[in-house]
Structures are given as C-alpha cells and as structure tokens.
C-alpha cells in the first residue's frame, strides 16, 4: 500500500515536471495587443508579417482605448498596450515606453467653408459657445454647429486639454458626435455650419469633401505633425511591462521598424522624426 502511494506520487511529480515547460511555453506564445483604435489596424498589419516569421506565436489585436491599454498592461491582462496620449510620470512607473511617432487631431468643417484657419483662441470661444456664427471668424452668415467627441475618450480628453487646459472640460458647449471615423466625416459634411475634429488623414478628409482647418495658421501637413509644429499633435506609444519576455520585446522592436519602413497613407501622420 505504501509502495503504491510512493509510485503514485512519483508519477504525479513527473507529470507536473513535464507539464510545467509546456504551460510556460503556452503563456509565452500568446501576445495580446490592445489600445488606441487609431493604431490597431497598423498593429494588425504588422502582426500578419510577424506571424510568418514566428508561426508558433499567437497574436491577438484588441481595439479599445489608451486608458484600457494602461490598466490592462499594468494588471497583466495584455502584454502590449497602444497609447496615443501624453502620459504623466505616475502612469509610466514600472512600464517600458516605446514611442513610435505622432498623430494629430485634425479640425474639420462643412464643405465649401470660406474659413480655412482658426486660432486656438477662436476655437476655444467656439467650443465655449461664445462664437455662434461663422461670420464672426470671417465666414458666411451661418450658425456654427460645434461637434465634439464622446467624453472619456483619449481624443476628447486631449482636445479639451489642448483648448482649455487640464480642468476646462466641463465648460465645453458642443454637440457630442458618437461615431466612427467615416460617420464623423459624413456628418460634418452633411450638417451646414458644422465644425468637428478627428484622427483622420488629409486624404480621407479631402476625399469626403469636408474642409480641413489650419490651427494658428499651421495646416496639419505631414511635416508639421512630424515636427509637432501643428498644435494638436499627440504621441503614439507602445507600452509593456518592464519585465516583459523576449517575444514581446521582439514584437515591439519589430513594430517600430515596421512603422519606419511602411509610412502607410492612413498613418501618414505617424512618421516619427528621423
């Protein structure tokens, strides 16, 4: 009886020892990448390439937002986070931050708007409801319909902070446009007097026929965004735990190279300064 028990325990020990490396390997072989929607398509594209060289590694891309990415990386739910806003020092603690470039919030208004430039001050006044007609900023006699994005998104947060500073969010007076990128463009196009913003490329905006506004006289050209001359730029970051394994680090390194190698049209703003 005792002998039988010993044999049983030995077998169990062996099985555990055998299973351990498999479990470890499995843990290493799945990478979840999640975060800002503007970066997700690019990450997906790179992953297709990455899978070819590392077929054993499973990669999942989960479009969400920057805040989710921060929290999830921190609690180990995901391995790599996609973040598109400036981080404060408290947020970066214990994380590995890899900047891959910048993108910008593009200001858009209704088609054929004669006004093509707004200062940050004018913009602030519009979004505070102090300017209600385009006539006041040199345009036609047409009421301004200010459209903003859903509160809580990193885009909205960044936009409000750019206009009103850190705590100015409450004073905003605008209609909230809950929509995807395409719908945003279409809505701005169809509502006369509209003014909105989004992370879009110049090509997309021009194809839809909406007017792209310059801010403080600086048009959102690629070079202006790259050099952060355009006021409404934001960084693009990859975050991971500082103690991340080799596969994750390889993915991050590979993605940085991939972005440099492939200046995609939809990511034209994301070129890092060379």
């Amino acid at each position, binding site marked *: 009886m005792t002998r039988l028990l010993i044999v049983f325990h030995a077998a169990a020990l062996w099985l555990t020892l055998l299973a351990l490396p498999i479990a470890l390997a499995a843990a290493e072989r799945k990478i979840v990448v999640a975060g800002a929607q503007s970066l997700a398509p690019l990450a997906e594209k790179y992953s297709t390439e990455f899978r070819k060289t590392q077929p054993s590694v499973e990669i999942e891309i989960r479009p969400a937002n920057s805040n989710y990415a921060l929290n999830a990386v921190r609690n180990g739910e995901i391995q790599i986070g996609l973040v598109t806003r400036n981080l404060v020092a408290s947020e970066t603690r214990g994380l590995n931050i890899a900047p891959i470039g910048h993108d910008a919030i593009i200001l858009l208004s209704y088609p054929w708007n004669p006004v093509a430039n707004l200062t940050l001050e004018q913009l602030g006044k519009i979004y505070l409801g102090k300017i209600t007609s385009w006539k006041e900023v040199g345009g036609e006699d047409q009421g301004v319909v200010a459209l903003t994005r859903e509160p809580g998104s990193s885009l909205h947060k960044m936009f409000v902070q750019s206009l009103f500073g850190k705590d100015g969010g409450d004073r905003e007076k605008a209609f909230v446009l809950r929509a995807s990128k395409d719908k945003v463009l279409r809505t701005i196009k*169809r509502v006369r007097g509209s003014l909105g913003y989004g992370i879009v490329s110049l090509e997309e905006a021009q194809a839809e026929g909406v007017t792209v506004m310059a801010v403080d006289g600086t048009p959102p050209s690629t070079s202006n965004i790259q050099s952060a001359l355009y006021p409404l730029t934001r960084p693009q970051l990859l975050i991971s735990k500082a103690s991340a394994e080799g596969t994750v680090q390889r993915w991050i390194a590979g993605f940085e190279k991939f972005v440099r190698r492939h200046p995609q049209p939809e990511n034209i703003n994301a070129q890092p300064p060379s």
Partner: protein
Amino acid sequence: MRSLLHKLLLSSLLIILLPMGLAILWSSKTLTTVLERRFAEKSRAQAEQVELLLGERKETATGLVHWIAEMPGVRDALKTNDRARLFQHLLPLVGSIQLDFIEILDSAGRIFLRVHDPTRHGDRPKLTRDIQQLLRGTGDFANYGVEEREGKAYLRAVETIDGDRTLGIVSAGYALNRDLIKKLEQVAGGKVFVAIGSRTYSADRPGQQSKPLAPISTVASNDRESLWHRNIPSPSLEIRLPLITDRGTEGSISIFYPSQEMTATINTLQRTLAFVALVGIALALAASWFMSRRLTRPLKELVSRTQQVGAGNYEGAVSTQSGDEIGALAASFNCMLEELRRSKAEVEGYRGELERKVAERSEQLNETEKKRAAMAHMIAHDLKNPLLGIKKTLERVEQTPDEFSGNQGKKILTDLLSAGDLVIGMVNEMLDLYRSDFGDIPLSRSAFRVEEIIQTSLRILGPDLEEKAIQVPIYSNPEHISVVADKRRLSRLLINLLSNAIKFSPERGRISIYAAVREQNGSGFRVELRVEDEGVGIPERDLPRIFDRFYSQDKAEAGTGLGLPYCKLVAEAHGGSISAENRKHGGFSVSVLLPMQAWETEGFHAA
C-alpha cells in the same frame, strides 16, 4: 470564252451568290433587330435599377419619418422648445442614413429644426397642400412625394407628430441634386433626366431647368417606355420610367443609353458577315471550278477522242469511270469504238481472204497456163508423129519411085491416107473442144452403121495395134446397128477410146468392143458402145476427174489429155452420156450411152 466550263462556273456562282446574298442581307437585318432588342432589354433591366434605388430610398425616408414621429423625445422637444436636445438626439442619423434633410415643423408650420442645418429655424416655408392638410388633421397617409421649394425639388416623406393634438410634422428626404442624379446614373448606366412639372433635372445643372438630349414628355404616364432617338447627334435609346409617389405619377425619369457600342457591334457583325461572304464566295468558286472541271473533263476527252476517231484512229478508250450520264456516254462511246474496231478487223479478214483467193486463182491460172503450154507441146508432139510418118513415107516414095507401084504402092497410099485422117481428126477434135466453150457443137448427122465406124477406127489405128499385137474382138448385138449421128465425130470418139485402151494395154493384150441396144426403163431405147481393155486401169480417186480437160493419168506417156473430155463432149452433144469404171478382173471399161432417137438399127427395124 463560251466553253461549258465557263457556263457551269457562271451558273453555279449565280446559284450560290443569290441565296447567299439574300441570306446575309436577311441575317444582317435580323441580327440588327435582335441586337437592338437585346440592347433595349439590357437597358431596361438596368433602368429598373433606378426604380429599385428610389424605392429603397422611399422606404428609408418613410421608415425614418415614422420612427422620428413616434419618438417621445421629439414630442418633448416640441413641447419644451428644446431644439439643441432634439438636434443632439437626431445627430447620429445624419452620418448613418443617406438623407439630405430631416425637417421638423411645428404646428404653426414653422421650421422647428432642420437637422442638416440646425441654426436655421423659425422660417415659414410655403407648404404643399398635403402638408397643410396633415397639419389641419385632414390629410391622408399618402405621405411620400415630390416637393418643390425655392427652385429645388425634393423627394420626401412626411408624418405628423401627434401628442394630444398635432404637435408638428416631420419630413425627411432627398434633394433631387447632382449627387442623387449621379447616383441614379451610376446605377442605371446611362444619362438621367428627371422631369417634374415643367422642369427637367440632370446631373449637369442640378436644380435648374436643363435641356435634355431629346424632347422629354412631361405628361405623367404610368407606363415604362423604350424610345429610339436616331436623329440626334449620338443615336441613343431612351428608357422612360414614371416617377411614382404616393400621390400618383408626379413626373418621369428618362435614361439615355448611347448606342455607339451596339452600333460598333453591328458594324463588326456586318464586317464579319462580309468577310464570311467573301470567304464563302472564294470557296464556292473553288468548289464549283473543281466540280465543273470534273464534269467537263470527260466531255473534253470524249470530244478529243471523237475527233481522233474521225481521223481514223480507233485505238484506246475513254477512261471516264463516273456513274452519271457522262459516264454512260463514255461507256457507250467505248462500246461504239469496240464495234468499230471489230468491223474493221472483219473487213481486214475479208480482204485477206480475197487476196488469198486472188492468189489462189492466179496460181490456178498459172497452172492452167502451164498445162496449156504443155498441151500445146503435146499436141505438137501428137501431130508430129503422124506427120513425120507421112513425110518419111513420101521421101521413100521420092527416092524409090519404083517401089511405089503395085500392091506395095497401094499399101503405102492407104497408110498415108489414114495418117492424114488421123491428123485431121485430131485437129477437128481440138476445134470441137474449142467450139464447145462457146456453145453446142454443130452436129452433121447422117445414117450409118456402127460397124462402119468401128472398122474405120481399127483401120486408122491399125499400125498401133499391129505394133503391140493387140487383138480386138468386136461383140455386136444385134449384129448391125444403124445410127443417125455425126459419123465423123462418133468415129473420133471411138478412136479416142481405142487409142487410150491401146496406150494402157500390155503387149499381146486384148481390147473388146461391145455394141448393144438396151431398153432403159421409161425412157426408151439406148445404144451402148463399150470399150474394155486389160490394162492397169485408173486409180479410183481419179475416176471422177478423167473426163476433165487436161487430165492425164500417165505423165510419162504424155498424152494431150483431151481424149476422154472430147468423148464426153460428143456423147453429151448427142444427148447421151459417158461413164467409166475399173473392171473387176483388171482393166478399164468405158461405155457410151446414146439416146434411141439417134440410133437406127437395121435389125431392129427389120424385126
């Protein structure tokens, strides 16, 4: 050239080209019609996409206004006049639904909110009758239709917003602008003109009265129509669809399909047909040339063979093997040739035979001539002997005239006379034979006794008989037989018979002479005169020929050969006959039968 070949070629080409041309003409027309019909069908099918699109849009607008009208937020907003909240509420629709305007009117007919232009409100637009009726609460539910406002046309749906009373109207729809018409053109694949009332809308000048490609009927019609416009610069097909709304037919949509593509297809088709026709003609020409040659070649051969036959060349045959009439002609021509060749060969045969016969004749003639020469020689020889005897005797008389006296002299004289008689007799025989060639010999009949001529003959032949010491017994029954005949010729007959017998008789032989009267049954009496010898006789095979002229049995003994023929001539001249046979116990027997009329017997008369 008028040869059969060319005629055949020409006629077969006519036969081919006429139906071919007709067929091509017909098929070209038919194909054009078919293509046009297919083009029209295809165009119509495409045009119907416009109706589908408009129907979809109508559904969307109708559904949307219904949904908005039912929304509690709308009622609240109208009641509390909270325009911003309503806008925020309806804002998501702008980007997600393909609509050009969403408009909410309050119960007074003022614009409460235009979602696509939210800062404009409070205006009082000129309302259409159905909206006015709806506001008054008297309208029906036919709420989709055309609305023209400020020179622009809209397709829109309306719905009342009902609370405890009519709170307002929601209206949503599409501007009949360039975007919409372009969209329609994209779907229909042709140029689109929308006619409403007196205005025509197109993608070129949206919202303005534009000039269509062809006169467009503004009379509302519920029928779909296909119209060909061929007189305008670019011929095209117009598919006209009615613009049907809830209020009835409010206009028409004309879609123009340019027909260049189809025209090009038809042109290609016609070119292809022309090419096919050319190739067909070439093939037909080749085939008909080949066939015509096949037909005319045997005819040509026949013609040339006929010419050759005409020139006398019967060799060879026509080599046509075909089973048709020409083949039959060739076969019968070959038959004719064969027949010609055969009759030519026959003629040649006849000619050969004739030549052979002529040669034979001339051979016979030569032989006869030789015989004649031999006979002449023999006659001379025969005549020479007695004449020499006469001459010798006369010489002896001249030298020794003394001996020529007394009995001796008399004997000599007798010998001379008989020798002379013999010569004369021989000459007479020859004359008779000659005469007999021209007709009967003239007989000089006289009555005489048979023994007379027997004695005369024996006397004449006396020397020869003596020489051979031949006995000549004479048997006569009755003893004296008298005849009326040519005495001289009859004695010559006997002399001939006797001299023959002497010739063939051996030394010391015997020649018997029989004379008798015999009664022949039914033909009266006949006189038989027979001479028999004891010689070798005649070969049996020669018997029938011994009475022919120039037959001579014994060549060595060289006679004239005229003896027996003369006997036959004389016997027949007297109406009698002559026959010869070999005797059973050796020797030869010749008998002459003369009819009774020619004979008189003393004994007979006496009796």
